[in-house]
Structures are given as C-alpha cells and as structure tokens.
C-alpha cells in the first residue's frame, strides 16, 4: 500500500514538473506533504520513517559539520548538507555579481584577446568550463551570454553559436567537481565523496572531453562566427573591463572570498570541514562583507530551488523507505545479468537520455539509492557507478533546450535580445556534442575501472 502511494506521488510529481502547470518547488513541497501523510502515515504508519526522512537530527550531529576520518554516507531523506552548501554558494555568487565580478572577468578576457572573435569564442568556452566547476551554471551563463550578445553587437558576429558552446561547456565544467552541478553535490554528500574524489575521477573525464569539445565547436561553428567583412569596429566604443566593477573594495573582498572558498573545497577532505560548514562560512563572510547590503543579498537567494530540493528529498525518501527503488535496482540488475559493463552502459545512457528531457536533479536523487542497491547486490564498486551516474546526468542535460538550467538561461538570454534559438538549431550541434562526451565518459570508465 505504502509503496503504491509512493510510486503514484513520485510519478505525479514528475508529470507536473514536466508540464509546469505550477512552479516546481510548489509541486515538490505538495508531493512531500502527500508523502508524509499517505506513505509514512496511512501506508507505513511509521513515525520513525517521518523522522528519518526529515533528517533534522543530522544537523545536530558533529559529523554533519566536521569529519574526523573518512567522509560518511548520509542517511536517507532530506540532505541538509546539500541545502546548506547551495545556500552558502548562492549568497557568495550574489555578492560577486553585485560588485561586477563576472562582467569584469568576461570583459577582461575579451580585451586580453584583443576583441578577436575566434579567440573570444575559445576563451569564453574555457572560462565557462572553469567557472562552472565552482559556481552554478545558471549564474555563469547569465553573465557570459549577456556579455557575448553585447560583444556580438559591437563586433558584428552571430552570438548564437558562442552562447550554445558556452552552455555546453558550463554543463561539462559542472561535471568536473563535487560543487559544479547539483547532482554531483547530492551524490557527493549522500555517498560520502570528497572534492578530490570528484576532480580525480569525473574531473579527469571532463578534462579529456573539454579538449575534444573545444575542437568540435571550433570546427562546426568557425564559419558561423566569421565577422561580416567591410564593417569596421571602433574599439574605443567597447566598454572597459573596469567599468563593470561597481564597488572596488567589495570587488577585492569578493575575489578573496571566492579564492578562499575554492581552497576550502579542494582541501575539505584534509581539513575535515564538510561542505555544509563551508557553505555556512561562505554565507557568513559574504554577508559581513556586504554590510548594509546583506539583506538585499539574502533576498536574492533562490529559495524556490532550495525548497524544491527539500520537497524532492522527502518524495524520494518515500520511495526509498518503501523499497520501490530496490525493485527498480533489481530490474536494472536483471537486465544487465549482473554484468558490470552492461550495468554501466545502462546507467550512463539511461541517465543521459532521461536528463535530456527531465530535470536531472530528481533523476540523480532517485538513482542514488538504486546504484547503492546495485553495488550491494551485485558487488559492483559503488564509486564506479557514482561517476557513471554523475557523467550521465550532468552531460545528458546538454542535449536539448530543456535538459539543463544553463540551456534554458542561455536560450532565454539570447531570445530576450531577439536571437531565437529553435529546438532544431539547438539540437543539431548539441546532440552530437553530448553523444561524443557520453561516449568518451563510457570509454574512460571502462578503461580505467574495469
């Protein structure tokens, strides 16, 4: 009975998220409330399941803030470590945006390459990849796409190829680290991996893929990016990078906070600080530095996304507690016949295809208990399945305009300036790029781990 309720609520949640009848955070919170009442209350009649899924007690555990040894796997239910970390990063990013950091960085790079289109194209792809390793891809694309359009008007080139390449690279960069893409944060905190674990595994795959992707986009877009001949550009009209900085003191402080955050993330396995601690630290320091502007920064935090996560964790907790995900894991195991190679192929392609059409966050959250179960049942290394899942969900989203947040933001930023990116235009170049990176990921996983 409880498992039927959990499945119905989960499927309904997905359908409503896809149809966007109401905003996704409302859907997930309503579904979470239904899970608490019907799955845990009516179906299981278990208060323990409610307490375990809400997982509030974990926050009061010292291990939540500091690991003395190996990072531990978190219990099922709401992953507060993820929520707190993302909150902290959102505050930091808002602080950086307010002082003009991102616009300055883009303009600085454009100036550095002497406003030449192809070098801008290449450096912006690299910039997108690197920034997305530490900052959410939405923010990266919001600024990169806006600057790209501004430069395209001044330098007279078509901004669409550049924006699409930046979007792809943002998704690719996000796959490289634990904090780059929400699925990675959830995988990392749920299964107890460190920043170093990600960078040495998915990071390596992303590095190889970035080289291939840079070449791919260069060859498919070099003709589209040709500047119209005969039109001279007055470089004096181009905005100076410094003009982007709104507050010099705040800018320097923001750069320092960003630098310290990266160091803390890279060394968190050694220092023992959890990502929740880093998130809280980053938020507090940014708010103190903002002074009177702290309230404004707090208001800009995307609470809708955070509440979406909370609701989602409860709904997935319902599936986990009722054993539905174990059944699904058993099904994947049966199809693969217990063969690790087939299992990896199924997980990576299933994740990629699903993430191309539905939000990769609920998908990854659902898949975590499944890969855990597969690992226990069939004796497959959980780490291998984790990197497979991370690459599948992070990269698969690049294939379609609705697959990942960065895609939607890039397309919207372009369209609001009159540059329409149709589904066909998008998929024509992005689907092959996605297939290439998924294939690279699969080959690297096979060669390195099997």
């Amino acid at each position, binding site marked *: 009975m409880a498992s039927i309720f959990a499945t119905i609520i989960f499927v309904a949640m997905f359908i409503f998220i896809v*149809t966007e009848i109401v905003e996704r955070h409302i859907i997930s919170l309503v579904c979470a409330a239904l899970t608490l009442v019907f799955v845990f209350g009516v179906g299981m009649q278990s208060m323990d399941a409610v307490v375990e899924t809400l997982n509030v007690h974990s926050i009061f555990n010292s291990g939540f803030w500091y690991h003395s040894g190996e990072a531990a796997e978190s219990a099922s239910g709401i992953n507060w470590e993820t929520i707190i970390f993302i909150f902290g990063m959102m505050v930091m990013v808002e602080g950086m945006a307010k002082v003009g950091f991102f616009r300055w960085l883009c303009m600085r790079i454009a100036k550095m390459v002497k406003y030449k289109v192809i070098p801008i194209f290449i450096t912006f792809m690299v910039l997108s990849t690197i920034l997305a390793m530490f900052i959410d891809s939405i923010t990266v694309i919001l600024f990169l796409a806006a600057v790209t359009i501004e430069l395209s008007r001044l330098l007279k080139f078509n901004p669409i190829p550049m924006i699409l390449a930046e979007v792809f690279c943002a998704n690719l960069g996000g796959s490289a680290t634990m904090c780059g893409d929400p699925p990675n944060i959830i995988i990392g905190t749920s299964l107890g991996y460190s920043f170093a674990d990600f960078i040495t595994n998915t990071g390596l795959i992303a590095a190889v893929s970035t080289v291939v992707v840079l070449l791919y986009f260069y060859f498919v877009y070099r003709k589209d990016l040709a500047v119209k001949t005969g039109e001279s550009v007055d470089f004096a009209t181009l905005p100076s990078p410094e003009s982007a900085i709104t507050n010099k003191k705040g800018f320097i402080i923001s750069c320092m906070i960003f630098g310290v955050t990266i160091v803390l993330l890279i060394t968190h396995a050694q220092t023992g600080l959890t990502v929740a601690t880093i998130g809280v630290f980053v938020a507090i320091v940014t708010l103190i530095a903002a002074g009177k502007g702290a309230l404004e920064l707090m208001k800009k935090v995307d609470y809708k*996304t955070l509440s979406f996560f909370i609701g989602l964790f409860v709904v997935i907790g319902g599936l986990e507690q009722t054993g539905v995900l174990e059944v699904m894991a058993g099904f994947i195991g049966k199809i693969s016949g217990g063969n690790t190679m087939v299992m990896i192929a199924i997980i990576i392609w299933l994740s990629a295809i699903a993430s191309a059409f539905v939000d990769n966050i609920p998908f990854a959250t659902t898949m975590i208990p499944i890969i855990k179960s597969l690992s226990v049942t069939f004796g497959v290394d959980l780490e291998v399945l984790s990197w497979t899942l991370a690459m599948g969900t992070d990269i698969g989203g690049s294939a379609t305009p609705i697959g990942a947040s960065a895609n*939607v*933001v890039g397309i*919207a930023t372009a369209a*609001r*300036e*009159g540059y329409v990116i149709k589904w066909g235009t998008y998929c024509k170049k992005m689907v092959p790029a996605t297939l290439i990176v998924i294939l690279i990921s699969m080959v690297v996983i096979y060669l390195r781990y099997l």
Partner: protein
Amino acid sequence: MGSQLIISVGREFGSGGHVIAEALAKHYDIQFIDHHLMEEVALERNLNYEELKEYDEKEKKPIITRRIRGLSNSPEENLAYLQFDYLKKKAVKGDSFVIVGRCSEHVLREFKTMVSIFVLGDRNCKVKRVMERYNLKESAAIKLMDEKDFKRKRYHNSHCEGKWGDSRNYDISVNSSKLGIDDTVKMLIDYIDMRRGKMD
C-alpha cells in the same frame, strides 16, 4: 500633440477593434502599432523579422518549454517580453501611440497617460463581419473567430495577471455592435478627450 497619449485597444475578433484603433490613431494623429510592432523591434535591433514573426502573439508551447528562475526557453514568451520592453521604452520616451493587443493594457498600466479600451461585439454581428471581410461561409467564419479569440485569450492570460476581456482590466469596454463602428469611434473620442482633460 502636446501631452503624451497612449491608447491600448484589446479586441474580440470580428468586433472591428482594429479598425476602431486605426481611426483613433488617425483622429489624434499619432502612431498606430499593430502586428507591425515586431517588425519595428526587429528593425531597431537589426534582427531578422522573417525569423521572428512566426512567434508573434502566440502562446508558449507546453512540455517542450522549461522555466528556470523566471526565464524560459520559449521563443514566443521571450519575444513577447522583447515587445513589451520596446513598448515601455517608447512610453518612457514620451511617445504617443495607439497599440492593438500585445497585453498593452497590462504592460503599460503604470503610465497615467494611457487609456485602455476593450472592444467586444454581439456574436451574430461579429460572424457577419468576418464573413464579409474574409469572404467566408458562416461555419468557417465562426471557426476562424473562435480560434482567433481562443489564441488571443491564451496569449493574454499567460502574460497578464488579469483575464482577457474582463472589464475590470480596462478603462472602458464597449460593444461595437450597439452603436456601429463610426459612432463607437465618436463615443471613444469623447471619452478619451474627457480623460485627457483629467490627465493634465
């Protein structure tokens, strides 16, 4: 014209709202903007109008559209906002114009110099008008009328808080079938003149 005047005209298909809006623009000698708005936006921004026009005044397509932090990948929605921004910029500049549709009564609601009008009509009169204007049989005219109104309603309601045609959203709603097109125009001119007196 001395002071700014913006006239926003919403209309049911076949009600003569477009003709009425055109007559008002002629009377006040101000710019008339209808479906050419997109063309104007494209020209201003050096964009390809042919590529943009297929998304004009259309509702976003569900399922293949996703929204993130208030941003959407729907061209229909983004181009609607592009036009709204253009209208706002024009209004801020102090331009006078008559604008047909495009959620203008909602988009320009903060401008005190705007008069918003909704033109409706009796169903039989609208059908007759559509039959004559498009040389259609009655059934085809009804079909076309219902389709157009359905699309306008969906487009409007997806971008505005108020509902399309709801009299509470407009300064004046008028049934053009009762007075006929010419007298409706006269009545609206009287109303607009009185309103302009109060604007000063």
